[in-house]
C-alpha cells in the first residue's frame, strides 16, 4: 500500500497535494485497491466552480462498486483532469499521479489541519484491513 508522505488524507480515502495556494485532489491507492478495476470516472465540477469541503467532486465506478469522491477542503476549481474519463484504468495504475481529479485554489487553508498525515492515514487503513 503506497501512502506518500508529502500528501494529506481523509477518512473517505481522498488525498490532497498542496503547493502554495493550490491543492490537487485524487483517490488513494488503498481506495483503488478496494474498488478493483475502475471502469468509469466522472468529474463533476467545471473550472471556476466553488466547492465546499465534503462536497462531491467526482464519481468513480469499478466493476463491483460506485464511489463518490468528496472534497478534502473547500476551494475554487482551477483545473480538472479532462483526459481521465477516457482512461479510467489510470486510477488503478497511478492513483497519486496521472489520476488526479481536480485542482483547486484553497478557500480556507486552515481546513488542511483537520486532515490526516501519511502516518495517521496508514494507521487508519491498517485498522480497516484488520
Amino acid at each position, binding site marked *: 500500500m503506497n501512502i506518500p508522505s508529502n500528501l494529506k488524507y481523509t477518512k473517505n480515502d481522498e488525498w490532497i497535494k498542496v503547493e502554495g495556494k493550490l491543492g490537487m485532489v485524487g483517490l488513494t491507492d488503498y481506495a483503488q485497491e478496494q474498488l478493483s478495476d475502475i471502469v*468509469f470516472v*466522472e468529474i*463533476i465540477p467545471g473550472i471556476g466552480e466553488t466547492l465546499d469541503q465534503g462536497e462531491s467532486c467526482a464519481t468513480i*465506478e*469499478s466493476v*463491483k*462498486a*460506485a464511489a*463518490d469522491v468528496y472534497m478534502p477542503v473547500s476551494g475554487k476549481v482551477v483545473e480538472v483532469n479532462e483526459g481521465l474519463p477516457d482512461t479510467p484504468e489510470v486510477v488503478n495504475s497511478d492513483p497519486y499521479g496521472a489520476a488526479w481529479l481536480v485542482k483547486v485554489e484553497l478557500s480556507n487553508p486552515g481546513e488542511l489541519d483537520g486532515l490526516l498525515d501519511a502516518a495517521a492515514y496508514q494507521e487508519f487503513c491498517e485498522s480497516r484491513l484488520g
Partner: protein
Amino acid sequence: MFFPHTETDREAMLRTIGVQRVADLFQAVPAAQRFPKLELPSAMTEMEILAELNDMAWANSTARDLISFLGAGAYNHYTPAAVDAILRRGEFFTAYTPYQPEISQGTLQAIFEYQSLIAGLTGMDVCNASHYDGATAVAEAVNMAYANFRGKKNRVVLSPALHPQYREVVRTYTANSPIVLVGDNGEVDPEDGPEALIPLLDGETGLVVVGYPDFFGRIFDYTELAEAVHQAGGLLAVSANPMALGMFKAPGDFGADIVTGEGQPLGIPLSYGGPYLGLFATRQEYVRKMAGRLVGETVDNRGQRAYVLTLTAREQHIRREKATSNICTNQGLMALAAVVYLALLGKNGLRQVAELNYHKAHYAAESIANLPDYKLMTDDIFFNEFVVRCPLPVAEINEHLLEHGILGGYDLGQDYAGMENYMLVAVTEMNSREDIETLVDVLAEVSND
C-alpha cells in the same frame, strides 16, 4: 432452505425493543378494527366458484365484443397468435429479470434484442430492459434529468398535451422533492403547438416532456423545440407511441435526448391496470444516469457470444441513495411480447400497420367532419387519433354508441377545461371500413335525435 424465527429469536427481539408481546406492536390499531368479524358466505366448491367468476367475467364488455374507437393511451391492435405462443413457453414465462441472470441466456438475449429494436425505433443509442408503463417511464425521465444535473436544474416543463395520467404520475413521483413542474398549470393553451413551450424555458429547466403523438393524436416535428431546450441547457424527453414510429421520424432524429413510451401497442393486450410496458431509451452519454436493468452482449471465456446484465453500478443495490431511481423492476414478459411482435412484423410490417392506422383514422376523421353538427378540431398532422367537437356531451353520445355495440371515444372534458363535448377518437387496423361507417351513421343519428 428457509428457517423461520424461533420462539427464542422472537423473545430476544421483543426484549431488545422493549415490548412484552407481539400483539403490543398493534396497539395503534383500534381493537375493533384489529380483528373485525368477517361476514363471509359459507365455502363454495371449485365448480361453484368458477361459475361465479365466469358470470362476473361475462358481465364485462371488451374490445372483442364491441367496435372500439377508444384509445387515449391504450390501443386495440391485432396481436399475432405467435406472440402468445412464444411468451407462454415455460422457459420464458416470468415477469422478472432472473436473480442469477447470466444462467438464463435466452431471457437475456430476448431482452437484448428488445433493447436493440427499441433503440432503433426511437433513434436512441441505448434502451433499458423496460419500466412498468408509459407513465412511470416519463417519471423516470424526470428523475434522470434531475440526477443528470445533480439537482442544480429543478424545473421540468410538462406539455399540457402530454397524457394527463402521465402528468399525474410525474406529480406523484416528484411530490415532496425539489422538482418544480410547470407548463400544464394553465401557462400554455393545450391546443397550441410546441413553440408555445419555448417561453417557459430558462436556465433552471432540466427537462421538457412532450408527447409524440401528443394526447390529442397530433404529430409535431420537435426540431425547433429541441434546439431551444438545448440552448437553455436542458434535455428533451419525448413520450412516443411506438406504433407511430413505424411511419414517422424517430425522435432521435429531431434532437430528443430521452425517448419513453407506452409499449402496449406492440402485441400487448388491453387490460385494466396492465401489465403494460414502459419504454425508455436515451443517448449513450446519459447511460450511467439511466435507471433500470440493462443487458449487454459480450464474449465468454471460450470466445462465445454471451449476454450479461451490465453497468449495474448505476442501480440502487450498489449506488444506494445516489442512484437515479430505486426501481429496477422491469416488465420482462411484456418486453418479450414487444420484441416477438416487432420481430414478426419486421420493419416493413410495422410500417404497414402504422399506415393502416393512419389512413383509417383519416378516413374516419374526414367522414365525421362532413357531418353537419360535428367539427374536426385537429388541423395538424395526426396519427391514429383525432379530436372532434360534438353537439352533445360525450358521455351522452357514448351511451347511444354503446347501444349500437360501439365503444365511443375518450371524453376530453374530464381532463381539460374548455373541452366539454370534445371527443378523442382512436382508429386502428382493427376497425373495418364498415365499422367506421357505422360509427359515422350513429353519430349522425344521435345529433338528429
